[in-house]
């Protein structure tokens, strides 16, 4: 389930390990998952020994899948149910399909944490977007979300979007990070912020968002090592857009539906080892299993999940 990097690697590896009949379900109209919107370079240095953009990395796997007769790819297919007996219900245009699998690999990826989850006070105007959504808007839909932006959180998505928006002519006024260091890669701090003269405010947070219909400004305040506001340190930043890049949540609702045990803090499967779940015959890989920082490792570990599923089927 899921036709991003994890699902594609798992399907190909399971096939290579001898699994006869594989169905790959993808809700979008294309394979590739999040790679399709990650148009920046930096992918594949380990797996392909060259630097590719997200769409190029995805394309290599899409080509392999096209050549592979033993894998049926079903696009625009949204899984709505998974039972402990591995019965799957999914919608595709015009139909509700039901199939039973002898093994299931969940490669459902992540969704973004939102403004509500970090509780930024203030009004609820237009102009506040999760950074990954803004990435899809800019890179795939051709919509620029605003003219002057502030980014909350210095994870890789936030840093990449700072550069992307700057290149598109948006005035990026700063990245606000409550921690002392960036969660993103150092190279991204350098090539996404320093290259474009975008300030990075460590140990700061947005204390309020202002605006009636549209974001008008944000209040920023410095915090101490206990993350308490430092009185008198506040300043205002006029802007019409706030991008929120504050982490990812693995999507494991299907596993939960199938009775699988979930770690409530991380929303990841609880299991004896990597790629396993507590439900026999149900595996999990990629960002649904744990949040990765490099797709190369997603490919490596998801291929292992494909082989584990193949081994499970042989034993049965």
């Amino acid at each position, binding site marked *: 389930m899921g036709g991003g990097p994890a699902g594609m690697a798992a399907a190909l590896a399971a096939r290579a390990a001898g699994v006869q009949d594989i169905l790959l379900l993808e809700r979008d*109209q294309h394979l590739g998952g999040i790679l*399709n919107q990650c*148009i*920046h*370079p*930096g992918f594949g*240095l380990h797996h392909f020994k060259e*630097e590719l*953009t*997200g*769409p*190029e990395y*995805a*394309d290599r796997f899409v080509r392999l899948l096209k050549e592979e007769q033993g894998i049926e790819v079903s696009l625009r297919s949204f899984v709505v149910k998974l039972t402990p007996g591995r019965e799957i219900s999914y919608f595709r245009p015009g139909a509700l399909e039901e199939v039973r699998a002898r093994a299931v690999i969940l490669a459902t990826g992540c969704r973004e944490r939102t403004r509500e989850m970090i509780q930024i006070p203030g009004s609820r105007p237009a102009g506040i977007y999760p950074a990954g959504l803004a990435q899809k808007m*800019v*890179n*795939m*839909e*051709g919509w620029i979300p605003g003219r002057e932006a502030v980014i909350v959180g210095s994870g890789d998505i936030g840093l990449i979007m700072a550069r992307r928006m700057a*290149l*598109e*002519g948006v005035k990026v006024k700063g990245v606000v990070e409550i921690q002392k260091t960036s969660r993103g*890669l*150092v*190279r991204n*701090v*350098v*090539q996404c912020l320093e*290259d474009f003269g975008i300030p990075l405010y460590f140990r700061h947070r947005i204390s309020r968002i202002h605006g009636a219909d549209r974001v008008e400004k944000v209040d920023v305040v410095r915090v101490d090592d206990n993350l308490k506001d430092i009185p008198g340190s506040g300043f205002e930043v006029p802007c019409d857009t706030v991008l929120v890049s504050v982490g990812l949540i693995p999507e494991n609702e299907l596993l939960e539906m199938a009775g699988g045990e979930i770690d409530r803090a991380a929303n990841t499967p609880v299991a004896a080892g990597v790629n396993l779940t507590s439900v026999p015959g149900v595996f999990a890989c990629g960002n649904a299993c744990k949040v990765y*920082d*490099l797709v190369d490792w997603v490919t490596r570990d998801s291929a292992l999940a494909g082989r584990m599923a193949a081994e499970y089927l042989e034993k049965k």
Partner: protein
Amino acid sequence: MKRVMTCIECPQGCRLEIEADGRRVLSVAGQKCKRGDKYARQEIEAPMRTLTTSVLTGGLELKMLPVRTSKPIPKEKLFETMAAVKRIVVSSPVKAGAVVATDFLGLGVDLVACRSIDKK
């Protein structure tokens, strides 16, 4: 003159210590692979970046086509290149790796499609 910079060639992000005389590099230390040395010299002499962006399409299955420069371009040309990219509209199907514009802005680099795109 001593300079410290972070290598951006790969996710390791090595901390490079460079001894330079103006734009002439005397020594580079701190890199874990040979790309670090090359990067440091290039960065001191003339910083280069690969540009990736999306161009508008017409009558194709996706609204935007992701593209990249075939080679890195001078860092100070990034905005000029973006302005030129914005004037391009791709209206016929292309394969991944196809050249969308040749010798872009006379920089000696092509603009290359990062994915295949079909008709609507």
